[in-house]
């Protein structure tokens, strides 16, 4: 286990349009270009051993993405970071390399910074506030019942741990902290769809940035 390493990286700008599957391919090519000595699975069709914690949804940006790999040669973390950043596309950047401390399953909370652009940000802000104030925030969530795929109505109010909302000149700025465990991970898009449901005019653009992933006790995941 001692050669396992954890890489934190950002995925911003145009990189938000890279799906998770494409990100995996992009990362493994970057490891190759950067000539990082990594462990491959054995067998007929060896592939790079690589695990991502909590994949991001298409269209969202993040400052705290995580991938775990296994180093099989000598290389300092500093060197690895420099090489990777030379090999990665412009909107993906390694911010730190370290030995893993926590298990990915210990991730419990994620924090987001969300910008909602609108012609009438004040009205939008009020709409969202009243959504938060309601006794329940119900959403339709895809779930499985035995083998069948069903849509289930659930209340995600308990999954919203805290929020802060302000109006900027052209947008509403929302900071929200949501449960992000294996069982109770909430996609902020789902929350937003519930909160802005009754809003009459169009929301021009929504920017979602994941800023932090935390443990149950509020400590940083590392």
């Amino acid at each position, binding site marked *: 286990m001692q050669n396992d390493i954890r890489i934190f990286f950002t995925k911003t*700008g*145009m*990189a938000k*349009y*890279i*799906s998770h599957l*494409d*990100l995996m*391919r*992009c990362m*493994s*090519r*970057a*490891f*190759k*270009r950067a000539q990082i000595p990594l462990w*491959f699975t054995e067998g007929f*069709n*060896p592939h790079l051993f690589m695990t991502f914690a909590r994949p991001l949804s*298409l*269209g969202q940006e993040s400052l705290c993405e995580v991938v775990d790999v296994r180093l099989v040669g000598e290389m300092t973390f500093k060197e690895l970071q420099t090489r990777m950043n030379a*090999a*990665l*596309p*412009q*909107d993906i950047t390694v911010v730190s390399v370290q030995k893993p401390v926590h298990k990915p399953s210990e991730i419990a909370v994620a924090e987001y910074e969300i910008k909602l*652009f609108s012609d009438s940000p004040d009205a939008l802000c009020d709409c969202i506030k009243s959504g938060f104030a309601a006794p329940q925030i119900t959403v339709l969530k895809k779930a499985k019942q035995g083998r069948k795929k069903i849509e289930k109505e659930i209340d995600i109010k308990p999954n919203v741990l805290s929020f802060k909302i302000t109006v900027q000149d052209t947008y509403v700025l929302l900071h929200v902290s949501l449960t992000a465990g294996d069982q109770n991970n909430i996609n902020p898009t789902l929350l937003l769809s519930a909160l802005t449901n009754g809003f009459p005019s169009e929301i*021009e*653009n*929504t920017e979602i940035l994941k800023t932090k992933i935390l443990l149950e006790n509020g400590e940083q995941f590392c």
Partner: protein
Amino acid sequence: MLSRAQEKLLAKVQKPARYTGGELNSVVKNKAEVKLRYAFCFPDSYEIGMSHLGMKILYSLVNERADAWCERAFAPWEDMEALLRENRMPLYALESGDALSEFDMIGFTLQYELSYSNVLNMLDLGGVPIRSADRTDLTPIVVGGGPCACNPEPMADFFDIFLPGEGEEVTNELIDLLIAHKEKGSDKLSFLREAAKIEGVYVPAFYDVSYHADGTIEAVTPKETAPATVKKRIISDLDSVYYPEKFVVPFIDIVHDRAVAEVFRGCIRGCRFCQAGFIYRPIREKSSDTVNRQAKCLCDSTGYDEVSLCSLSTSDYTGIESLIPKMFQWALPEKINVALPSLRVDNFSEELMEELKKVRKSGLTFAPEAGTQRLRDAINKNVTEEEVLKTSAQAFRGGWTSVKLYFMMGLPTETLEDIAGIAELAQKVVNEFYKNPDKPKGKGVTVSISVASFVPKPFTPFQWEPQDTMEQLVEKQKHLIENVHTHKIQVSWHQSRTSFLEGVFARGDRKLCNVIESAWRKGCKFDGWDEYFLFDKWMEAFEENGIDPAFYSNRRRDFSEILPWDHLDYGIRKAFLEEENKKAHESVTTPHCRQKCAACGAAKLNGGHCDAK
């Protein structure tokens, strides 16, 4: 860089990474610091266009220049097109997000006839008038290249310039010229007059075409500074010609997502149906050291785990035996797969097979093209039944359990006997599998036969031949199915309707420009995609313009007829093609170029030199 308005569209489309740019190795320059902006357009989807080697070469070649910036644009998928039109936003190039109309030069590669409607659609979406005559400013200049530039007549009204032949040198010469004309504030006509003087530059507007009453061509008359015939350009020395050190690496999965090393241009085989086998002559090879170096360099710069060797017939490469061990030396330790496409049956040696087994097993494919020896002789496809069977048996011993065979239907001189021969050959391959004493237990064999409809093309010995009608093809397809007696043989074929249209444009003339415009206005686009192909709209467009498509596809031409592409010189002598045509009708073969030079004429383009002579 995309604007917020452009980004907003991306949130609503499938596969947004098709439209973002920002891929590894894509080139972003400061537009204020370059003198010329070039938009390289591929008239098909991102996934297909990004797989194309020619585009990668020209993209890097132009971007090597400090004074020019080359960007990419592809045909947007229908969801994106709808959003662009709905929001009145232009089609943009991926690197800058700027509309095509802002570019100085817009280059299209014409890889297949069924992408013509997409060219019009992209120009229109990009805010550029589709007709050359309606673009009166100096820029943008719309340029077309690629294999279809050998008969670009159906697209003549839409392009300012065509570049028959290889683009590496002439593109730079044209860019130099356009920069000079921009700087002196010149106009389009003056620019085109100078451009027409460059060897390998075809300005269609500088030729008047007149027709006989029966619709055939009476004369093609050059005017202004245009030469009587435009000679295609070739690169003389492939070891020194520019080759990219980097490829743009897409985020999404594309058709050919790997590094590509080019090994040679041209082909020694002289298969009479194959346009590529003639229009890329004379044969010129790269040394195995060059290929090896370029392959390694690309793998390093892209991180690809697969590299393929590219040419029309890679196993004819004289350096193959020395190249493969060189490549394996670095590729195997780095777990890079070396893919060798288009291997030929006749020199697929045991040793090569052993080497290939070291890497991942891909499907085994052969292209006998015709079902009987007589017809294979007529088309000069030098593959015998014995070779196919021997190699299949060898492959089965090597552990393969599926073989794919490629055939054509509708070949000149073909009879129903030849069609039945396709099924018989496939059956014999199946039998070979069961003859193998140590065939894998519990595993069956699959022989897939894929049948394409033959389309006669310019600059081939069959350029005078009638194409089979759709009815004839359907009858032959039925006959083939009736002759297949086992589920171990799977048959698939191309739609005969698309082949029909392809045939019309391949040998079409300028009267078709109006048809293409009408069809595009009716909504035709992505004609190469079954789900978008609107055959009835195309037929309406022919009808409205008073054109009978059968005149182009199903008519036998006289050897004396002036063909729409006769004023383009691809080096190949017309008399040579005529001789080859006559030999085809007598089922007489022509030896390949290393056995005996057939004096096709192409060597004159290279100072009399041909690597196969």
